[in-house]
């Protein structure tokens, strides 16, 4: 246990000293704040638009039919989920790669393995150190969210909102760590470190960008800006009736999306933050129950990744060789 903590502590300090990660961290924080501010400005302009059209209607002596735009503050966090999807995955990949590549390149992995410690200490020490760093990063992001809300003013969060933020924080840490474990695995398994990094970024490209995009592109509702069904004036039951005729197509689209851990993270994150309107008034436990598969998928992949890392470290008898 002591050895594991020693390795974890060193790993954590090492990342903190890295300029690359300081830059990525600052970038993520700036993007978070910007995304919230932009979403707020968009919302405020919607409200002022509504108010001016309401005033116009009232001046004409007509009764307004459209409901006032409702502010669900957590809706403003859609961009944060999007950024974590992309930048978070890159952070995870770089952390996993550097955690092993540095040790191999400097030959310190040989030294580590010649010390009276087990491979388990090395794997779990490194995972723990990086987990702490990722957790701190996401906690910073959450703090930035709250600071941005405070800066904007007039936004009050309920206790449930805080729970929801906490849930997405935990989910985000697990999501980033999935990519960490993947990159960690490949960096041990591959003799060539550049190959390991190339495979990681190919996987990132496919699972973070391509697969979710294919799913989105295939979505009939996305064919028209603002939503196909909305533009046709269809209500939900009508939309469901139409889509029922394309169940094969819809299942294929869903299957493609489900291949990507990013999509599982996105679906759960959007549901918890109420980005999809149907979740806005749903009780939090019901949202979690509705999203159990996506949540379990992210955590399941993380568990599989940790297992794979431990397995490859034990199986690869020359884990130190480059």
């Amino acid at each position: 246990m002591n050895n594991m903590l020693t390795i974890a502590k060193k790993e954590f300090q090492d990342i903190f000293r890295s300029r690359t990660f300081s830059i990525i961290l600052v970038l993520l924080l700036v993007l978070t704040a910007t995304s919230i501010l932009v979403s707020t400005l968009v919302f405020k302009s919607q409200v002022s638009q509504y108010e001016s059209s309401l005033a116009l209607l009232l001046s004409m002596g007509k009764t307004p039919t459209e409901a006032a735009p409702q502010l669900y503050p957590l809706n403003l966090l859609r961009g944060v989920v999007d950024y974590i999807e992309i930048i978070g995955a890159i952070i995870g990949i770089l952390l996993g790669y550097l955690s092993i590549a540095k040790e191999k390149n400097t030959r310190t992995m040989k030294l580590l393995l010649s010390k009276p410690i087990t491979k388990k200490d090395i794997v779990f020490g490194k995972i723990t150190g990086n987990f702490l760093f990722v957790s701190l990063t996401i906690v910073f992001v959450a703090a930035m969210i709250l600071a941005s809300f405070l800066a904007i003013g007039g936004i009050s969060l309920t206790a449930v909102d805080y729970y929801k933020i906490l849930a997405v924080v935990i989910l985000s840490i697990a999501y980033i760590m999935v990519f960490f474990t993947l990159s960690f695995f490949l960096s041990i398994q591959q003799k060539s470190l550049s190959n390991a990094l190339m495979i990681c970024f190919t996987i990132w490209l496919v699972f973070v960008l391509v697969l979710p995009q294919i799913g989105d592109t295939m979505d009939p509702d996305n064919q028209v800006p603002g939503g196909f069904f909305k533009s046709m004036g269809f209500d939900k039951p009508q939309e469901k009736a139409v889509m029922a005729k394309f169940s094969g197509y819809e299942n294929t689209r869903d299957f493609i999306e489900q291949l990507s851990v990013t999509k599982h993270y996105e679906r759960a994150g959007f549901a918890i933050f109420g980005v999809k309107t149907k979740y806005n008034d749903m009780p939090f436990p019901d949202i979690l129950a509705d999203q159990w598969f996506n949540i379990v998928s992210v955590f399941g992949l993380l568990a599989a990744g940790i297992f794979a890392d431990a397995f490859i470290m034990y199986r690869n008898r020359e884990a130190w060789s480059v």
Partner: protein
Amino acid sequence: MQTDLLSENMSEKEEMKDITKEASSKEETSSSFVLDIHDLSKMYGVFSAVNNLTLQVKKGEIFGFLGHNGAGKTTTINMLTTLLEPSSGSGTVAGYDIVEEALEVRRKIGYLPENVRFYDSMTAYENLDYFARLSGISKPDSRIWDVLDFLDARTYAHKKISTLSKGMRQRIGIAQAIIHEPEILFLDEPTSGLDPFGVKQLRDVILRLNSEKGITIFMNTHLLQEVTKTCSTIGVLNHGNLIYLDSLSNTMKRFRDEKSLEDIYLNIENSKEE
């Protein structure tokens, strides 16, 4: 019948004597040999990197393991330091089996790989603190200063590793290898890449480690000059086979007609290849 019983009793006694003798010789072996390997081999597919290596190194010796590049020296060290599992054969280091008791072996050895660069972003002290803790020392501070003093490197303690010269980095490397007071120190090409001054300084350190701290040293090298100045025994490895093993003084006597150790080395290698 009586004769039979007597002879049976006698043979039993003799058997007991043999076992006792064996045990005492085992005791003697384990106490006098820090390193004891038998028929150690390492195969990579059909390629034999080390072939049936049998070798003993006595406590307090400085053993020079010679061989050209690719002879199998590093593979041997990797097996002895438990980094690699042998394909066949057996061996003990400091009395512990290199396969079955790998963790115990690692507690008893110090190791400095070839061209290790350490953690660049950390100071020499932080590097030593890290490795000391992993070697089982929970409060390493005083031990770190003792070792740095011994190596005359105190002034470099708080400098980042990346700013140190290669020679100084090697000294820090030796510091991490001896901080837990190992019984045997494995050095893989320790003078590789050092300037003549650095080589001399490191040689002095090796000799002092042996004479003042009593550490047995197993050193891989292809620099013959180093062997004459530091080692008490030499072994020559060629294509994974141990082709020569004797004390340095015997070697010098046996090949007295040769002008230098280099000639001796070439003589040994050529005679085996012929």
